[in-house]
């Protein structure tokens, strides 16, 4: 027994070390964002600032195009989420509740498309969108994000709908409602957590997306916030690390908050099949 508890202490110490190493970059980002410039430029780092400042946040917000690009990101993300979740829900119902010709093919496509690397698609998407004047337009980016978000949303929502007991739905139908009526009255409230989870996940992936936004949007005033951040470093010789970290913190915050809300459901969705064998 004593050897067991001494083992436990060693494991605990190791666990805390793992925690410290993993979290350090995040800590360092936030800590730097609040430090005055002399503490940042010093070769000997300060762990916690003695005189924290909000100056870097003011500098970051005052940078050209910050607000314009935040607005662009929000437009792209919100439109993508609304369309993706609505369309995907309909398909998910079809997959979960009906047997039909081509079902198998549809599932293969839904899973297979998620495996395509984004880099492999930039050339055809750029050329096709250019043909229809959708390059350097938010609408083009929204269309591209839909194509990556839809398969994931369909697959995840399908899992949520399958989780609903059949009796509930049948009970609603006995009450004299049509099949569609049963869906709306019974299914919708029960699938609500699934809709929230897929919405948030789509929000995060669209907010974080870089390569398509970089390729498709060239005007500074039309870019998304990740592209804005990626150009932050390159513009000056003396890098203002405080402002870079303040901007990074601001861009990460919405993602962190949303992610904490749905993390459990999403990790389940990605590997549900594997865990259950």
């Amino acid at each position, binding site marked *: 027994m004593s050897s067991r508890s001494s083992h*436990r202490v060693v*494991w*605990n110490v190791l*666990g*805390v070390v793992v*925690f410290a190493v*993993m979290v350090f*970059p*995040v800590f*360092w*980002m936030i800590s730097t964002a609040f430090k005055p410039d002399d503490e940042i430029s*010093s070769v*000997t*780092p300060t762990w916690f600032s003695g005189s924290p400042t909000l100056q870097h946040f003011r500098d970051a917000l005052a940078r050209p195009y910050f607000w314009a690009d935040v607005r662009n990101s929000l437009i792209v993300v919100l439109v993508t989420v609304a369309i993706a979740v*609505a*369309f*995907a829900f*309909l398909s998910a*119902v*079809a997959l979960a509740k*009906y047997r*039909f010709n081509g079902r*198998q093919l*549809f*599932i*293969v496509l839904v*899973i*297979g*498309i998620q*495996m395509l*690397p*984004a*880099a*492999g698609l*930039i*050339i*055809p998407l*750029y*050329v096709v969108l250019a043909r229809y004047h959708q390059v350097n337009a938010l609408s083009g980016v929204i*269309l*591209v994000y*839909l*194509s990556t978000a*839809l398969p994931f949303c369909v697959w995840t929502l399908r899992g949520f709908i399958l989780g609903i007991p059949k009796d509930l739905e049948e009970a609603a139908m006995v009450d004299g409602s049509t099949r569609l009526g049963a869906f709306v009255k019974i299914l919708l409230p029960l699938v609500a957590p699934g809709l929230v989870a897929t919405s948030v996940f789509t929000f*995060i992936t669209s907010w*974080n997306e*870089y390569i398509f936004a970089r390729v498709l949007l060239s005007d500074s005033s039309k870019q998304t916030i990740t592209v804005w951040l990626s150009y932050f470093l*390159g513009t000056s010789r003396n890098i203002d690390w405080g402002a*870079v*970290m303040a901007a990074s913190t601001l861009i*990460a915050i919405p*993602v962190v908050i949303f992610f*904490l809300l749905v*993390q459990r459901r999403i*990790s389940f969705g*990605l*590997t549900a099949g*594997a*865990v259950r*064998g």
Partner: protein
Amino acid sequence: MPYLLLAPVVVVMGAILGYPIYNLVTLSLQRYGLFELIQHHGVYIGLHNFASVLHDPVFWHTLLRTVVFTVVNVGLTMGIGTLIALLVVRVSTWVRLLVTAGLVLVWSMPPVVAVQVWQWMTNSQNGVVNYLLTELHVGDYFQHNWYETPFSQLAMTTTLIVWGALPFVVITVYAALSQVPHELIEAAEIDGARSWRIFRDVTMPVITPVLLILASLSILWDFGVFTQPYLLIGQGHIVPANYLMGIYLFEEGYVKTDFGRGAAISILMLAIVAAMSVVYVRRMLRVGETE
């Protein structure tokens, strides 16, 4: 009825994925540069683009580099991830909650943000990594440049990718480990089995399916990676000696506005990925069937 429900998704996917992929094939058989982009019309040149790519030593070097890069990254992610998951099973509850919370925090970091943090931590002037390594007497890292050679640039990219990928792996493997029946482990302990044997004969069979899925997902993600190497190495420092597949494609097709040749590279890359994803798709398909 089901077809009506599927219609919106099918129409959207057909228009923004099916049609471009059809175009990808025709593009790859054409000379299609900036002039043709403006004209909306390419010139048919047969398999010339494919011949040009397959005769380009840069393509083969990049492919080999990307394969090695993928193997190293996936190996490190899976190995370290499994070890941390096994550790999380053994710690006290408060440490477990601490580690899980930290992992979720890391998981949620946007890749572009993580790149900025990496550049700040590893910059040669006053990066905290150089300071810590020197203080811990690992060596003299005063003003050490972490991005000097293509190898070191890709090694730094690996640290960034593995760090970002660990949370998903650890949390998923941990979930699988909690499915291992307690009685089995206790019975094995009573029989006097060594911990290595318990791991191999009791734990491994339960978590192997999960490890396989995670490994195949990681292979696909790392093979097609773009954002982290492109931004961490820096747009101005990207050269053929540090190309990965995604970057090669981006530079040859998009930056040089040779869309026909870029399309040929895309098709080759997508074909490799498709071949690799067969395993994953078949597995997930079985899941779709049993439900």
